[in-house]
């Protein structure tokens, strides 16, 4: 009796299991685009950066076709009327596609564009981020000497600076940015070497200090803001050497008027590459290039994200020749990009390592920690 019942039950269970398997929910499409594929080594058809070249403006504000990648990179720290603090980032990336015959269509693209917009709400400890893509076709995205845009996110060049407007669904920016330092050519007259091969380099210029004012919006709440921003412009084809693991990049605006940029290229074994470099810009616009021996950057406390990746969010940075011994600390830990590309880009505070006195603020970019 029991056996028969058991058998019956087993049969019914088997049938129900089969039916349950048939009725299982369909797998959702989980493919995500990663821009890292587009950052690979460039084929030989791309132009290489092999030495300094004269830069002229506004012509070199425009895109440089023929190179694999290029970016227009604003970061900055802003203050609201009640003393609330914000960090912001707006970046346009251009990835040129392989040079193959293109279909006869207005949609035929020479490049793919990606835009990143982020707003760090320091008091709320919320990192708002939004990314967009567009093919370089139909005028959906582009960069001329006077205008850089991806759909309605755009930077327009004015006589006295730049106007940046970018609104995502739940936050946005509308800022006027006025340079208070001249354009600085990084590396050797704008030729920035990143590795031993001839093409491991980029053309790189910056405006390290822009007086910024305008409005930021979070949800429906808009606030007037003021502060300082930094513009980085860089293009090249196969900047990074194969043995690089990632980089740590600092842009620090000190209260005494000095702007300090240093980057540490990390090799596979965790050491700083000999191509790590930096620049100090003085209030009068003069600047001094830093070699790998001129500075140190030592990671301190690490923050673990939900995926278990450890990001060093506190640093000790020294530039002995400038008599600087700095503690650089994230305004808050979670300023990590979780979109197509995984990196950490956030507002930081700068203090004197000995006295603890605040010396300024800046931005920190960490890459290669989540791969």
């Amino acid at each position, binding site marked *: *009796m029991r056996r*028969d019942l058991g058998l*019956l039950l087993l*049969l*019914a269970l088997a*049938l*129900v299991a*089969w*039916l*349950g398997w*048939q*009725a299982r929910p*369909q*797998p*959702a*499409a*989980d*493919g*995500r*685009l*990663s821009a*890292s*594929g587009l950052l690979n080594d460039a084929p030989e058809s791309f132009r290489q950066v092999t030495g300094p070249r004269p830069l002229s403006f506004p012509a070199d504000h425009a895109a440089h076709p023929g190179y694999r990648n290029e970016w227009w990179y604003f970061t900055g720290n802003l203050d609201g009327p009640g003393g609330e603090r914000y960090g912001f980032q707006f970046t346009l990336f251009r990835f040129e*596609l*392989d040079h*193959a*015959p*293109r*279909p*006869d*269509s*207005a*949609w*035929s*693209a020479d490049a*793919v564009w990606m835009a990143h917009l982020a707003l760090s709400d320091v008091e709320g400890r919320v990192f708002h981020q939004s990314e967009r*893509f*567009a*093919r370089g*076709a*139909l*005028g*959906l995205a582009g960069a001329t000497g006077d205008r850089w845009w991806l*759909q*309605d996110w755009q930077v327009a060049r004015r006589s006295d600076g730049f106007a940046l407007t970018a*609104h995502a669904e739940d936050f946005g920016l509308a800022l006027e940015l006025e340079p208070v330092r001249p354009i600085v050519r990084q590396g050797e007259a704008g030729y920035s070497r990143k590795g031993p091969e001839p093409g491991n380099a980029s053309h790189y210029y910056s405006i390290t200090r822009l007086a910024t004012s305008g409005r930021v919006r979070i949800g429906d709440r808009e606030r007037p803001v003021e502060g300082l921003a930094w513009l980085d412009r860089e293009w090249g084809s196969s900047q990074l050497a194969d043995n690089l693991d990632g980089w740590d990049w600092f842009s620090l605006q000190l209260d005494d008027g000095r702007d300090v940029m240093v980057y540490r290229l990390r090799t596979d074994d965790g050491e700083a590459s000999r191509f790590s470099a930096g620049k100090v810009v003085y209030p009068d616009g003069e600047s001094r290039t830093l070699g790998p021996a001129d500075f140190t950057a030592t990671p301190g406390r690490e923050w673990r994200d939900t995926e278990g990746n450890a990001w060093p969010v506190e640093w000790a940075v020294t530039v002995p020749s400038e008599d600087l011994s700095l503690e650089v600390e994230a305004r808050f830990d979670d300023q990590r990009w979780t979109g197509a590309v995984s990196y950490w880009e956030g507002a930081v505070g700068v203090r004197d390592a000995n006295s603890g006195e605040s010396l300024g603020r800046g931005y920190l970019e960490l890459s290669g920690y989540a791969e």
Partner: protein
Amino acid sequence: MRLLLQSSRRFFRRHPGQLVLALAGMAAGVAVMTGVALMRDVLIESLDGAAEALAGRDSVRVTAAGGPLDESVFRALALAEGAPPLTPVLMQRVAFDGRRLELLGIDPFSGGGRGLLPPDLLGQLFESPIAAAANASTLARLDRAAGDPLTVRIGDRSLQLELVGPLPAGQALDDRLLMDIAALQDAVDRQGQLSWIDAPAEAREWLRARLRDSLQIDSAAQRRDAAARLTEGMRANLTAMGLISLAVGLFVIFSVLSFLLVQRRRSLAILRAVGVTSARVTAMLLLETAVVAGLGALIGLVLGTLLADSLVGLVRVPVAELYGLLAPAGVQPSAPLYAGVWIVAVGAALLSVSGLLREARRIPPGRILRLPPADSGQRLPSAIAAFGLLALAVVTVFASRSLPVAFAALFLALGGFALLAPELGVRLLSALRRIAPRRLPARALALLLAGQKRIRPALAALSLALALAVGLAMMVLGFRAAVDDWIDRLLRADSYVTASQGALAPATVDRIAGLPGIDTTSSARRVTVDDGRQLIAYDLPPRAWKGFEWLAGDSEAAYTAFRAGTAVVISEPLARRDRLEVGDELRLDTPAGSRPFRVAAVYRDYASERGTIALHAPLYRQLYDDRRRDSLGLYYDPATLDEAALAERLRAIDPDLQLTGREAVRETTLAVFDRTFRISWALAALVAVIAVIALVSALLALGLERRRDYATLRALGLTRGRLHALVVCQTAGLALAAALVAVPLSIAIHLGLSLVIQPRAFGWSLPLSWPLAPVAVMLPLALVCGLLAGLYPAWRIGRRDPAPELKEE
């Protein structure tokens, strides 16, 4: 209760055949019902797969009425301030190996397309202008692997693709290949065109504020509704078939369970004698039914899923051909659907045996003789009930014009008939017995009639199933003849010219009309206007006008008014749907403003269920500023025509032009028709299979019940061979009686489907027809089936040793 369960179990162990038959009947009925339910889902839920995969389930869609969308619309929207994520799509239908595929040209960087493509696939789509990404099930169906070439056809042209994949996407992208939009535009020469733009539902207002009024914005629900409406008739027919199959399956269950009751009359009586209450006996029988029906239904769900998976192709092909919709290639079962079917089936089984339970409760304690059950004397009431149901069915049909009501009436009528069929069958059997020529068949039938209570459910199930299969076949044949007549009459030109890509440009039309050997031309342009109505603009010479069959209105007067541009003629489905009659006014919203037209006549049309408004072409061109034509009818001048030269000259005008002869158009139309009804044939065949199960189960039951009689006959000297003949005579007689009863019913079903269901489901009427071939086939076939179905019971019965059977009581 334990005692009762023991008794149940012992019985089924001794009679595994009974258990198998009961399970088989239930499973078969539920299988067809499940299969139909799953296929219905394919016809409603998943037709919007492209949007679902690319832009999410609740997207809104921007389209241009009756044509492609200019890509400048996308550009303007995408660059506007506050633009939502927009998904531009260019869709191109292609054929591969007789199968329909859709090429979807997407921009992986716009809107929702991005998440679909893993980086490596994205790279491949950009690297090669012929790369097309497919999901795993599509690759499997095409029998191709990623990296393989695939040559698809677009009309006369062929297009070379290279498959990449598999795309990590579900069945929404079945038979849909993703390409980069630039590559697709170039490959199919559709530069500048989009098919649609999808956007999130919240963007509706934003879009409306920025789009010209002539562009349509439809929500996902509207699109699904439209798809559902398109396939409404088809779904209704499928549903009816599913319910009928379940009903026939229930007859099998009823017949088997009622036999089980007879078998166990004796043991039940003993149980009652030892003090088991009748309530407990009822509970036991209910439990037994629930277990058998529940298990059978589970098996049915499994079989139904397999069935739907293999039959879904029969539904997909006509859906693609008739409505241009690409349904998923597999079914998508859901737990609620399974649960729903299971509960309905088991509930129906319990209800159907409730009559038997009454009989079981009345078994007095200790009555152990297995007498044939007394005639219940319920024939008169059941006849009254039967006629009542039939009368109610007639009243219902006339009470409302809706399709569900018509189906309800059909079911009432079938129910009435099911009550009537056994009586008619039994009378037919008695008549057969009287005219049977020899002693053995007459005796066989007499024995059969003696157990008539057992054969009544079988008679009902059998005749119902046969009548349904035959009635359906008659309707399809009648419909086919009507379509053949219609198309034959409508096709007046000698041949037709179409473009394999898009429409014919005005200049092309003029050049074709001027070719030597062409006497005159007609033309047609079919568009869907803003409000969703179908408009067809005709240039019709008088000979072409004669091709229409007018169901209302005067042909001559209508022609004059049509050409004068004051009136339109409308198709029958439109007249029925919108309740329009000759003389009524109909307004058309043209780009030049709203204009009234008088309905001059109604014509027969089987081309569109939605209905069509036919307008004089010169007027259409003026009102809608659209000078293109979809097709051109060529009327030859026999004196100067050289057909080979004509084809050559057409090719010289444009290699895309296709010349199709009149006969080829007719054959294509009928081929589409035949493919549309393949699913009906398949379901009719399944109903017939269930009927055979009903027949075998009834006969086996009968044979086992009568085994004492057979033993007596054997003891009296009946040889084994003659016993076999006796049993086979019975099955054949039963099948023949059921088939004869089914004849008038099948004709009634044919008339009901043709005259009531078809007009309500599709909007068109069918001329009355009497295709009797299916009846002529069914009678001998039923007889043969009856003979074959008798072999197993005969073998079982003949194998028994008569001595113990006789001793048993």
